[in-house]
């Protein structure tokens, strides 16, 4: 049975290997350049934090989107390998050949699904290893490995994505019995679930930490933390703020008048506003996921996708076992 899987996929495995090798070549070439730039910045700044913060970003333009290949690979794997796995056999009626040999349908499915899930995990793992390495200097410079977009393309989560996308393709193909609709389901389902999880669910894996600090003082989240919200807390309640525009309406009138107003020539000093706010009982706050939770979050997210994949594969087995061939 394994030989049949090998015979069926050896061509595609070769193509996938070539594509992965090409991607690796690009990522490595670019990654070494970034690493050397980062190294010279480190030497130039010699441990001066302010100097580091003044540096231009290490990457910009289209190159900064390079890590998203870790999301592309799982989607492609699910669409091109997962969707046809059962569906194309049914379409071409080759299932009648396979299922007329002396092996049960369950064994056929187990071996095929097993190897392909393994292949998906390998592809996801390989591409994630490359993008994680490539992102190293950027993580270090901007302390942002935990931020959405970077968290998703590094570490072990791409393995979970790939396994899930593969399982989704297999199940959709089994239900629809046709490859094309299954491909559409993978595309829509994978993008949709990723949006829901990364935008709404992920921040709740563990209760976020909130830190308060004196207004006017600066707050820097320790290490590569993921800051979910920042702002000020007054007697009237919490104001999540990204700038004065958000904060201004909530301030007491006496403090508002102290603010410098652009265009009117009215001058003022921010430190006066800060002391006014402090006098009225305002505090600064930041809600964040500490950097120590990076790997637990990676584990939780990978676990969610792998569990969903397992549930989908379970559905596939039930359908293939129960349905007439």
């Amino acid at each position, binding site marked *: *049975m*394994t*030989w*049949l899987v090998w*015979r*069926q996929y050896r061509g595609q495995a070769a193509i996938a290997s070539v594509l992965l090798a090409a991607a690796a070549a690009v990522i490595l070439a670019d990654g070494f350049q970034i690493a050397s730039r980062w190294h010279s910045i480190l030497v130039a700044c010699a441990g001066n934090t302010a100097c580091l913060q003044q540096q231009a970003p290490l990457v910009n333009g289209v190159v900064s989107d390079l890590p998203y290949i870790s999301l592309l690979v799982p989607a492609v794997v699910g669409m091109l390998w997962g969707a046809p796995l059962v569906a194309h056999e049914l379409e*071409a*009626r*080759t*299932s*009648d*050949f*396979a*299922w*007329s*040999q*002396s*092996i*049960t*349908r*369950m*064994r056929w499915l187990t071996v095929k699904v097993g190897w392909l899930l393994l292949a998906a995990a390998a592809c996801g793992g390989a591409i994630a290893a490359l993008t994680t390495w490539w992102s190293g200097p950027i993580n270090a410079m901007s302390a942002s490995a935990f931020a959405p977009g970077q968290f998703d393309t590094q570490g072990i989560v791409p393995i979970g994505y790939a396994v899930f996308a593969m399982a989704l393709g297999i199940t959709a193909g089994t239900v629809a019995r046709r490859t094309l609709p299954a491909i559409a389901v993978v595309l829509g389902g994978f993008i949709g679930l990723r949006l829901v999880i990364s935008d709404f669910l992920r921040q709740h894996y563990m209760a976020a930490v909130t830190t308060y600090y004196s207004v006017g003082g600066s707050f820097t989240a320790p290490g590569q933390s993921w800051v979910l919200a920042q702002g000020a807390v007054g007697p009237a309640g919490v104001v999540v703020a990204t700038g004065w525009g958000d904060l201004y309406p909530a301030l007491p009138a006496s403090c508002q008048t102290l603010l410098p107003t652009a265009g009117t020539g009215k001058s003022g000093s921010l430190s006066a506003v800060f002391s006014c706010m402090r006098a009225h009982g305002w505090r600064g706050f930041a809600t964040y996921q500490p950097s120590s939770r990076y790997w637990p979050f990676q584990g939780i997210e990978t676990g969610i996708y792998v569990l969903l994949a397992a549930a989908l594969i379970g559905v596939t087995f039930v359908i293939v*076992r129960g349905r*007439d*061939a």
Partner: protein
Amino acid sequence: MSTAIETHELSKRYRRVSALTECTVTVPEGRVSALVGPNGAGKTTLLRILAGLASPTGGTAAVLGGAPRQDPAFLAEIGFLAQEIPLYRRFTAEDHIRIGAHMNPRWDASLVRTRLAELRIPLGQRVGTLSGGQRAQVALALTLAKRPRVLLLDEPVAALDPLARRKFLATLTAGVADAGGELTVVLSSHLVTDLERVCDHIILLAGSRVQLSGDIDTLLAEHKVLVGPRKDTAPIERTHKVVQEVATARQSTLLVRLGGPVIDPAYQAEDVTLEELVLAYMGADEASAGKRLTTVGESS
């Protein structure tokens, strides 16, 4: 002689459509049975149930003493070739031989190689590029290489030209001879003429029901065509079963299943051919709706 296939009131419904209704048949071991019937009669459904690829919604089926099931030991005994000649089009015959070797306990690779060499079918060419007849030959040889004890073939010659049909049936006959009476075959077709040379048993399905089944020689001996004046058939029906009646203004031709000797001297009894028998019973499906009598020419 033991029984290879036995079904009892086997039924299969797909939502509101009955594909097979209370089908009860027996095929003794070693027979080559023609499964005949018009398109949509339930032939494919019956074969797929016997092969363990579909499950019945009613009744029972036994193949080699047990219900068709997902069990390697059972599947090893069954050779099934579906109507669409399913092969991996991008694989060569040689690839298929190797797949078979990995997936079957008693695989006779030399049988396939020998047979395909005789037919001059290249082993190293993608099967998708072979002709329909060659592809069918490859598929049949692969099915025989499994060394099954029950071979189920679903309209394998339907898409083939007459020469390819003959070659295919020759391969089948050779396979049956090799097995020395231990191989039971059920071969479906909507054309009885394809099967007459190779089969010694028949199952006739029409309208999802079994209309006739048994050994062909026995059935031919049991039926006669009676030609005589057109008159009331009630006396005949007291002893015999009239399967079909074709009448002109004066003359009447009855196909009857004999219940005893024909004593009415007005009728002349003639032997029946398999094709006549099959056509009569296929018509009998409609006769159950009250159309047994076919009138030819002017009726008075």
